[in-house]
Each structure stands twice: as structure tokens, then as C-alpha cells.
């Protein structure tokens, strides 16, 4: 157990280090041009890194079972934030979407918190309702309603990427927990169809989809960014152009430091760098699964799997998009992309995984015990 924790921590540290280095390499030209200070974005990211590190330590030292008490208030708070961000004047509108709450110079992305809040609650609820998990109402309808509400709020921003990611993670959690496929599959199908319809009805998103389907044709328009990202990967070759030597970051690839940062990693560090990056994320995934497997407590298992899937899936979607494999979705690359909320929440998530390592064994392994515990001291919902 301890060894897994050490490896997990090392992988995370490496990812964060690569992230800081690559962020500097990628953003300095942009930052000098835009803010007159090449280190402008780096400094901000470092502040968030410090906050995230503190959050990570705090999460690791807090026994995760205490989250059971806090998960419902957390869920409500996040829901309130998600509603607030939609209110004109409160939510900051950037590029046609209200995703940010601006507060004292720093910006907060409620959907980042929503991801963790929903996973924490689902882990809590699904483990609590283990016995009735195959029932329609308790096992399916209730968790599905809460999840649906969250996804709906995020979709309203609109943030299709986060919606899709969170939807997949929630679906996987329900699936693993044992919710009946007869309920799950039709819902998933309906969800995907509704998603599809929404995309086709939105002219901008429909065009993005067309650009995804025929990148050559749209490479000067909607497909420009992805096309330039592909050029960056291709330019990198096996060995890369060398750290700091990206050409595409010279404004050919717009906003290279945010969602497309992987392309610059690929250009500067080559296939070797990208494979190393994937290996680090895979390490994280494997560590998460081992932690889940070794945890006797069901809540801890679900939480560990949910967090692991969240990080891994987000990475997969991000690089899938940047390599023009998936349609364009605005998702940051965990630990690497510029973005405070994302970095902080990912570090907190790693902290929670460490907490599961530390405190998992303390928990009662017996699900009957848990059942009784629930009977004796009713928990909210």
C-alpha cells in the first residue's frame, strides 16, 4: 500500500513538474505579447500550484470517510455555484460561455469543483445503497436525477466537454456499482442522442463537428487550431525539436498554453516525451486501481475508481482532441494545461487517493456492517 502511494505521489510530482516547465515554454511568448511579462501566466499557475499542494496535503490528511458527512452540503454548494455562474453579471463570459466566477483577480471554474463533488457524492451514495442498487428508484432513478441535474447545469454554461467527461465517469461509476444495465443502457443512449441533437442544433458546434469530420477542408477555419496542433505533433518527430524550440507556439497554434498544450509537448519533446507523458498517466491509473482493489471499504473503492477515471478520461479526451481523433472539446490536460481550478482540483483528487491509502484499512469491510450503520444513524439522502 505504502509503495503504491509513493509511486502515485512521484508520478503526480513528475506530471506537475512537466506541466510547469511546459507551461513556461509555451506561454512565455504569448504572455510577453499579451501582458508584457513572459512569466505572467507562469506566476499565476505557481500560485495555484501552491494552493493545490496545500489542498492535496489537506485532502491526504483528512480521513476520507469524513467526506460522507460533507458530501451533501458540498453537492448543494457546487450546485449553487453552477447556478450562479449562469447568472448574467456574476458569471464571466469568455468566448460565448459562462464558465468562470471572477473573484479578487482569480477566476474559479465551478464545473471543476462539480466534478469532484459529484464523484464524492456518488461514491458515498452508491456504497450506502449497495443493497438496493438493483432497485429502480434507489438504485437508479435517484443517483441518475442528481447526476442529470449537474450535467444539465454544466451543459447550460455551455461546457460540452466537461458534461461529456462527467457523464462518462458517472455512468462508469453506476455501472461498476451494479446498477442494472436495463436501466443504464437506455439512459446512456438517450443521453448521447440528446447530446448529439444539441450539437447539431448549435451552428457553431455543428460546424466544429464538420471540421472534425473533414479537417483538411476546414483547416483554415473552424479546424485551424486542431490542424496546427497536428502540425506540431508531426513536426516533433520521434525526438522532438528540443525543449523551448517549438515553432508552432509562435502564435501558429493559438492559445497553446491551455487546452492544446499537449501539442507543444509533442513538438518539443517528440514521441518520446508524449509516450512518457502517457506512461505517467497510466501509472496514475494503475495506482488508482490498485488502491481501489486493496481498499476494503466500498466507499473508498468507488471514490478511488471515480477519481482515477476522471483524471485518466480527461487526459484521454484532451489528447484525443488535440490529435484530431475526437471532436473539439474544451478540456484542459490534467496537471499540464494552464488553469488554476483544474490544477488545484486534480491535486486535491490525488490527495484524496492518498487519504484512501491511509485510512481505507480503518473502515469496516463488512457491507452488512455498513448496512446496519446506515440504519442506526441515518445519513442524509
Amino acid at each position: 500500500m505504502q509503495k503504491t502511494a509513493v509511486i502515485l505521489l512521484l508520478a503526480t510530482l513528475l506530471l506537475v513538474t512537466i506541466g510547469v516547465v511546459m507551461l513556461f515554454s509555451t506561454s512565455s511568448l504569448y504572455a510577453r505579447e499579451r501582458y508584457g511579462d513572459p512569466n505572467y501566466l507562469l506566476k499565476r499557475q505557481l500560485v495555484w500550484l501552491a494552493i493545490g499542494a496545500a489542498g492535496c496535503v489537506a485532502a491526504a490528511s483528512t480521513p476520507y470517510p469524513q467526506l460522507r458527512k460533507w458530501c451533501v452540503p458540498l453537492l448543494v454548494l457546487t450546485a449553487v455555484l453552477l447556478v450562479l455562474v449562469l447568472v448574467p453579471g456574476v458569471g464571466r463570459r469568455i468566448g460565448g460561455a459562462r464558465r468562470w466566477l471572477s473573484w479578487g483577480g482569480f477566476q474559479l471554474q465551478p464545473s471543476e469543483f462539480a466534478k469532484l463533488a459529484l464523484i464524492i457524492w456518488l461514491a458515498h451514495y452508491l456504497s450506502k445503497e449497495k443493497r438496493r442498487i438493483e432497485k429502480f428508484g434507489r438504485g437508479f432513478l435517484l443517483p441518475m436525477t442528481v447526476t442529470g441535474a449537474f450535467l444539465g447545469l454544466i451543459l447550460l454554461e455551455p461546457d460540452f466537454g466537461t458534461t461529456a467527461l462527467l457523464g462518462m465517469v458517472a455512468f462508469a461509476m453506476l455501472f461498476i456499482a451494479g446498477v442494472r444495465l436495463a436501466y443504464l443502457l437506455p439512459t446512456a443512449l438517450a443521453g448521447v442522442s440528446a447530446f448529439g441533437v444539441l450539437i447539431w442544433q448549435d451552428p457553431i458546434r455543428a460546424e466544429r463537428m464538420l471540421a472534425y469530420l473533414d479537417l483538411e477542408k476546414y483547416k483554415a477555419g473552424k479546424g485551424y487550431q486542431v490542424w496546427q496542433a497536428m502540425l506540431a505533433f508531426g513536426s516533433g518527430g520521434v525526438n522532438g525539436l528540443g525543449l523551448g524550440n517549438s515553432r508552432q507556439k509562435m502564435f501558429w497554434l493559438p492559445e497553446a498554453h491551455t487546452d492544446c498544450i499537449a501539442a507543444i509537448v509533442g513538438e518539443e519533446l517528440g514521441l518520446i516525451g508524449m509516450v512518457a507523458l502517457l506512461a505517467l498517466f497510466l501509472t496514475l491509473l494503475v495506482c488508482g486501481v490498485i488502491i481501489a482493489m486493496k481498499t476494503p471499504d466500498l466507499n473508498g473503492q468507488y471514490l478511488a475508481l471515480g477519481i482515477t477515471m476522471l483524471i485518466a478520461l480527461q487526459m484521454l479526451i484532451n489528447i484525443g482532441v488535440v490529435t484530431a481523433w475526437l471532436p473539439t472539446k474544451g478540456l484542459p490536460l490534467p496537471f499540464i494545461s494552464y488553469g488554476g481550478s483544474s490544477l488545484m482540483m486534480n491535486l486535491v483528487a490525488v490527495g484524496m487517493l492518498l487519504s484512501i491509502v491511509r485510512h481505507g484499512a480503518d473502515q469496516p469491510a463488512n457491507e452488512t456492517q455498513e448496512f446496519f450503520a446506515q440504519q442506526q444513524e441515518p445519513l442524509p439522502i
Partner: protein
Amino acid sequence: MITGTHKTRALIVMTTLSLCFTALGGRLVQLHVLRHEELSGQAAANRGLVIKRQGRRGEVRDCNGNLLANSQSVRIVCADPSITAAHAGATAAKLSPLLNMDAAALQTRLNGPGKYVRLKQKVDEETAQQIRALKLKGVFFEDQYLRTYPQGSLASHVVGFVDADHKGVQGIEAAMEQYLAGVAGYEVIERDRKGREIRALRAEGIEPRDGYHVVLTMDQVIQHIAETELEKAMGEFRPRAGLIIVSRPKTGEILAMSNRPTFDPNNAGRATADARRNRCISDVAEPGSTFKIVNIAGALNDSTIRLSDVFHCENGAFLYGGRILHDAHPYGPLTVEQILFKSSNIGAAKIALKMGTPRLYEYIRRFGFGRKTGIGLPGEVSGIVHAPNHWTKLSITRIPMGHEIAVTPIQMLMAMNAIANGGKLMKPLIIKRVVDADGRAVVEPPPQQVGQPISPAATALMTTALRRVPMPDGTAPKAAVDGFDAAGKTGTAQKIENGQYVRKYYSSFVGYLPSPDPEISILVSLDDPSGGTYYGGSVAGPVFRRVAEKIVEYLGISPQQPLTHSRQVASAR
């Protein structure tokens, strides 16, 4: 521990995720390795830009270094539409007043396809600086040179002009293209998306080499004299066209070559082809009596005749071959010398009959007729000399008086130069030297003798006779040059239109001075002078005199005899 369905389902999810990892790895291999060439090439093409750099075209100068053709540095304003398209409207609005172009038209071009578009050429440096100060994204400059001819139409037929691509079209500009043009260079730069060069990535490039300068044998002052006198003659006699060539008999150097009508090479496009033609080398005509020097010199050289031999000139009407040959004035017996300076057609015909067809043809070829002189200007023609087997019975009596044969003015002058120069036929020389940017001579063609048609002794005899042409009993008393012994020959050739001789004439005079050791030779030819007189002696003769008098004064050639009073006064002024 995870157990049962729970475990199976978790395994399914995790396996799926792992598969996604593998697939993503495959995708990365595809992009990084398999499509490396294609994608990195595309990226490089986006960044890269080849900027052409033109070498400066060489100058053309006269023998004293006066500038005849110059290249002025200007700019071409270019744009990269892949960059300017984003803000074409604003850029067009800013450029429009500076380039003096329609904003809407500019916007269309800034919005166009591709990565390179020329917005405006020949933009002066000052305007270019103003545009540079605007710091417009995607707008850049290329060097360009503007060909200017500071002397305007002076010697324009020799200097020639260039086309829109700066390529020589006519004259020296075309003939010396390979020297003048220089070698274009280029620069390969990489740019960021805003069109700024990434200095650190400047790669290959070749510096342009400037063209060589061409120095002509021509003298701007002598050219000016020729032009001025020709212009005056044009006003006085109103010919259809006219030309004057001045050369140095000993070397064959061309000192001046003037044509009317003329054109301004700064505006060559507006001139007609007729005005742009260098008649001195491109036009053939029957030379008329000036051609008599060929057969008489030949006969003297062969000792077939002596200067003192007498031929009867049939009182102006000589029946030969069933046709009557006329003289302008009826003469009885004339010596050879008289035949030449009085220009008797009948006398010349009788001398030719005495020497025979093969010798006559031999001397025509020896004096360089029927082939190009090799002056090295484009457009030179060889003239028309029929081989003896094509001659009719009359030919031998007509060719000596310059009929049935067509020559260029430059051929005529070079033949006269041979007589002036001890029988040495020189190749006309117009390029004094070609120098590189540092002034080192790259090419310096020496004077070149191409033949020796007659002996020095025969030329001395010819000169004796030709010196009498500008005398009171010669055909051209008005060609007499005050203070100098000039030798020359008049020509009055009937023009042929539609195969018939018409009452239109080429009036010409070709001569040299000071004889017997001449410094300069001059050919004057006026095409169809109107207003009564058309004889070479009275039309071209005075022009010869005026040109000669001014040139000897300019060159400081000492008079052989004291000047008459009027010349002394003029000279003193």
C-alpha cells in the same frame, strides 16, 4: 476487496481505459512518425517565406563616365494574405492613402488566397518608410530598381530600354543583358504567425550580385552635337527620317549615333516601333554615289586604273545593255579623280566595266558589305548583296553608283573608315569596357581589324580624290570644314517604292577629317528631304560641316590651316 459483478464490471471499465491508452499511443506514433514528413513540411511551409532580392542592374555610361542609364532603388509593397486577411479592412484603409490606391481594391487583394501578393511596385523609399512605421502585420517589402535614363532621348537608340521585368529590350540594354542584369539572390526566413521574422531561424540565403556597368565608346558631348545638328537638319529639310554616326576611323569606335525620329527610353512604351528603330544598323537602302568609293578604290588597288586615267563620260547619256545611264550633269572626258569628286555615274560604270564583275564583287565583299559589321547591338542586318550569278547585264554599271545593292549606314561608314585608315577595315566598337561594382574591368574589347580591302597606297590615292569633294568644283562645297582638309563622298540615292524608282531620295554624306590622318569620320543621311534640294552635297554636306566643326573644336583638334575670320570669331566665343 472488490468481489463479484462489481469486480467484473470494474475490470471491464479499466480494460477499456487501458485500450484507449494503447490506441492513443498508436495515434501519436501515426502523427509523430508516420506523418512526420508531411506535417512538419506543412508547418515549415506555413512559416517559411522566400524573399527574392534583386541585384542592382548595372549602369550605362559614356566614355567620360556620364550616366546614360541608371538604376534607382525603389520598393515593392507586398503582403501575405494568409496573415492580412484577418484585418484586411483596417490594413487597406491605412495603406490606401499612402499607396494612392483604392481601399476596396486593396482589401480584395489583402483577402486573397496564397501567401504572396504584390500591392504596388515602384514605391519610393520615403513612402516605404511611412508604411513600415505603421507596423502592419503581413505587409513587407521587396527591393526593386527603377531604370532611369537621365539624358532622356540622347543616344536612346544605342542605350535602348528595359521592359517591365527590368529586362533589356533594345540597344545596349538588350545586348549587354547578361552583364547588366546581375544575379538575383534570395533569403529564406521563418516567421511567426503575425508575420514577424524569427531572427534566430534565419537559414540559407544567397546575396544578390549587382550587375556590371557598361562603359560605351560614345561621347555624350559628341552625341549631343550630332543630335542637335540632326534636329536642326530635320527642321530645315523636313526629311522623313535622318541619322548621323560619328566614329573614330583608326579604332572603329562609335562616338555618336543619332536617329530621327527618336524616343525617350524613360517612356519607351509610348513610342512607336518606327521611332524606336536604330536606323543606323537596322535599315538598308541603296547607298547611291557614296558607294562609288568601293569600285574606284578597288580598281586603284588592282592598278587597273590610275587617278590620272581619263574616261569619256558620254555627255551625260551612256547607252549600255540597251538602257541609257544618265549623269546628273553632262560631262565629257574626266580623269578618275574627277569622276570621283564630280560623282559621274557613267565614269564609275566604265571603271567597273574595266575591272570586271569578279573584282567588283570581290571588293564589295572585302569592304564588308553583305554581312553584319558585328557592332554588337541587336537588330543589325547584313544588307543585300547579290552574288554575281544573279547579276543582270546592267548590274555592273548600276552597282558602282549604289544601285541594285542595299547597305546599312554603319556598313557604309566602316567602308569609308577603311579608306581613311590605310585600308584597315575595323569592326565597329561601341563597348569601351565592362566594369564590376568595384570598377575593375571585366571585359575590355580591343579595337579589331577585320580586313584589309585595299593597300595604304590605294587609300592615299582615294584620299587625294575625296579631299576634292568638299571643294568648290566638287559635289559638296558646302561640306568644306573651315581650317581642315576633309575628305568625303556625297550620295543621292533614289528611293524605290513598290519596285519603282520614285522621285524621293536618300541624301547622304560620309567623310572624315583631318585628312590624311583623320581623327573622326561622320556619316549623315537624310531620308526624303523635302523643299527643292535633295542632293547629298547640298543637304547632308552642310550638316556634315557643322557637326565636324563642333567636334574638332570640342576634341581640340588643331586646324590644318588658319581659320577664316568668321570661324575665328565663332571659335573665340
